[in-house]
């Protein structure tokens, strides 16, 4: 059984009095440790699919199974636990908590699960949490800006904080929704490089990146092209390192 199994997944939104089908029978398998690019134009259903995998939304019909967990049928309480333990999310619009500074934004995520040291129970001491948050900020190269608030950071910096926040929980799955969508290409590529480095093959972390930008597709081990709520193409490839991308 594949790590992530999606079968006949459909989702219809009601907005006011109109209904829009966003996903229309998606079947997909993703293996553990794969870097998947979900590619397609706006309105193709990429974000919706990502939300279903992350347990942020529930389907109208069909199933999502992650690591043998039937995500699509979990109760709200278990969904929360699933998101907490397994998932890290990076949004297109960064979505940092505007009232917390860079460091605190990361701590806010680590607060949830604590810091595991060796075999024992995780520690929730604020000093240890702070230490770990700093470590992650350093990984994204923002240690010197840790006391800045989101409004004082550039878009690229915000996105790097957001990546640090997602990864500091050490999730098995990292979901990124248009992580470069609002960034200049140089900065965007830099963000992708960081993501690449922090989710390297050695860590065996499954990464799914949503993008409308075809130039990003070579980054993936697998590319899934969505069109009008359906899988239009699904292929594996030898990936290209982020620093070789150009758009």
């Amino acid at each position: 059984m594949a790590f992530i199994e999606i079968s006949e997944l459909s989702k219809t939104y009601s907005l006011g009095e109109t209904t829009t089908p966003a996903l229309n029978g998606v079947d997909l398998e993703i293996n553990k440790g794969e870097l998947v690019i979900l590619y397609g134009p706006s309105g193709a259903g990429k974000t919706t699919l990502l939300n279903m995998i992350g347990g942020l939304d529930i389907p109208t019909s069909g199933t999502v199974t992650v690591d043998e967990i039937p995500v699509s049928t979990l109760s709200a309480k278990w969904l929360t636990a699933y998101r907490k333990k397994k998932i890290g999310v990076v949004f297109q619009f960064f979505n940092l908590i505007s009232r917390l500074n860079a460091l605190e934004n990361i701590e806010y995520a680590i607060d949830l699960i604590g810091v595991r040291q060796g075999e024992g129970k995780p520690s929730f001491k604020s000093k240890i949490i702070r230490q770990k948050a700093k470590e992650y900020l350093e990984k994204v190269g923002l240690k010197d800006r840790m006391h800045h608030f989101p409004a004082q950071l550039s878009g690229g910096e915000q996105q790097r904080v957001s990546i640090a926040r997602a990864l500091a929980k050490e999730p098995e799955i990292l979901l990124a929704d248009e992580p470069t969508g609002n960034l200049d290409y140089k900065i965007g590529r830099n963000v992708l490089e960081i993501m690449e480095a922090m989710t390297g093959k050695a860590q065996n972390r499954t990464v799914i990146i949503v993008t409308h930008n075809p130039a990003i597709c070579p980054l993936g081990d697998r590319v899934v092209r969505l069109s009008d709520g359906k899988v239009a193409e699904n292929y594996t490839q030898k990936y290209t390192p982020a620093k070789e991308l150009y758009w």
Partner: protein
Amino acid sequence: MAKTVKNIYRSINANKLRLFTIALVIAIGITSFNGMVTAFVHMTRTYDKAFEDHNMASFTMQTANPGGTGEDAWIDYVNLTSFINEFREQEPRIKAYELRIVYNTIFEIRGEKQNGQIVAMNTRDTEGNFREQPAVNGYRILSGTPYSELSRYQNVCLVDAHLGEYWKLEPQEFIAIGDSRTPFEILGVIGSPEYLINQGPFADIMPSPRRFGVVFLPLRAAQNLLGVQGKVNEISVLLEDGLSKNRREEIAGNLKDFLETNHDLKLSDPVDIDNQASYWLMRLDIEEAREFGIVLPIIILGMAIGGLYVLFSRMVVAERKDIGVAQALGYDRRTIILQYLGISMVIAIVGTILGTLLGLWFLSYFSPLYVDMLTIPFEPEVTIEWPIVIAGIVIGILTGLIGGYFPVRGSIQPLPAESLRFDPSLHITTGKIPLIERIIRKFKINPKVTGLRLPLRNIFRSKRRTFSSVFAIIVSVSLISMAFGMIESMDESLTFYYDVSENWDLRVDFSEMPTNASQIARSLKQNIDGVSDITYHLLSGATVTSSESSQKKQVSVVGMNDSDGYLGHTFDFHAGEWNPDGVVLSVPVADALHVGLNDEVNLELPKLTKLVSTTPLRAHFELVNITFQITGIIDEFNGLVAFVGLDNLISASNFPGEPANTLLMKIEDPTPERLDMIREEILAKYGYNVRNIATKAEQRSELLELMDLMYNIIYIVAIFAVLLSCAIVYNTIYISLQEQKREIATLLTIGTDNRKLIRNITVENTIVTLIGTVFGLIFGWIMLWFFMRVILNMEFFRISLFISNKTIIISFVLTYIGVLVAQYFPLRKTLNLNLAEATKERVV
């Protein structure tokens, strides 16, 4: 956890002004709770202490006929002393007793006559040693000096503080007392717990010190004055502490039996301390004010809950994205709710602390105010009441919990995607043409899309939004109109009472009841220019009962004489009409007795059995029951009153001749100068027996002075109301504009100019204010009714509810100003929006 705390802190910091306004509302609620409830605890304690420190009598007992002259009017001091000492051998619980003279008579102060009471006590104790204070019913010297050893040989007196304050009496001044107008020198002014609140003659609703005062004399001087050497007419007894009312009454009964059976004395029923007029009225007064002090904070805090609810339900909407992110990270509902509860807790705690401190400050202002109003010569006992403070804190925090929990619980979506996808402008739109627009279209009124149509749509775009805006206005208008309505209802009732009900220009009260009233009236009308109508009343007291109810009502009975169609009083009939053969009752009396028009009631009236002298009137009475048919029910200021025909009252009371206490006259062209002139003329011609000549303006201002406290409370309520409404209005308007940020930015982008935008928003808020005002006035009226009829249910005043047009306009204008101020700041911010960003704020 640390981050949650930090998040709460930052969240508060970001919204501090708006959150502070809500904290302020809670603070106001807690202030009023702490301030008022504690004030009344203090009052109670102050009086209790005053009663205790001054050995307030556990019971008093008068002779059977304390106003008379016979053997049942007076008892020999020496005999009575030995009788009571004899009784004390079998009743050790009597701590002390005092034999006194308590006697109603006439004073003349600076040439003006008035009614009064003398209280006389021995300046020596039982061993014959001089003492400054009596053993029972002591007092406190406020100015001047106490009695000296020589006082018993002199005509000296101590005047009660109310009287002293009214006339600004000073030591060494003289006051003439009694029928003989014997001059007494004032030694000092005293405060007596026994006379904290004066109860005057029965007919007087609320005696002004101008009409009734108390003067203390040495016993011997009083005996000489009244010509009753060696006599007293009252026994005041102080019992051991801690006896129940039943015990006290048992002892009092035993004493009465003992004196009547063993020593053949005739005594009236003993009056327990709980029934003592001053003590009882004081309690009643405090009790009523205390209810007010509880209900007012409940209303304010209720509104704080409403305000918090509105604020929080809009705040969680505005912060939907942060909530979505927290959920996406894996925070559960409970933690997020806790976070918001944390915010509301902080608001509640800040509000509570502020309210508690303000409450204490308010107290230090309020307690003396109350003391001042009652001219109470006792220092208020101001301490911090921990149980009340703690109750206040609990109430404040509950307010925060309730107001914070429900809106947050309701607004958190189960799925983070929904929170992240959320569009506030759609959330607040139903996408329908509002009913009102469909109605006005029927009348071919079709506002322009760039004009009135937009604000009209905006108002009714969603129920929740409309509700919160209108709610804010309702709070404001209802509180303001209620507060001013209270003042106006009082004013209006008084105005009606004096302008309509009391149909006279000058009122003459006699010192001694003349028995030739019609002759005096005739002579006044003939001899004094400008008297157009004149009539006279006989006043008496009665207990009204009916077969319909077990209730009894003490009322003043006015015997009315119809002098050529002039009654001196204009009835405002609720039902029926005036008929000299029947009785006219007031609404509260009729209600209490469950009687209506044409029903029969019994009036228990004093009947003269033996006339000792007519001038001054000294007589023996017994009580007789007379049945009257109700011919009319009236609704007017004086709540405990019954009107009967003068002839019926005279025959029932068995008075000789044509008796009257009061002459009422109408004057042609009653200018103050003319009234003064006529007053002088009457005094010059008939001065010998005139106690007081009053104009309505004088009577009214005396009453108003007594109501000062009430007015002060209401003004405080009005100030609270305006503050509170500004706070809530500011919040709702702020959030409304926040929610429409993208729409406003779009309008500006496609070329709507600032002026038009401001105009549209102002029109919208104006209409909301108008709608809210209508409901607010209705709600204000209901609250007014609740306060005046349910809380301040004083049956001796009948206050008709009244809200003037002026108040309606004031409550609208004040609220509207609040709205305009409230819209200014968020609007300014919105007009300076970064259009490029605001039109692209990502939603969906």
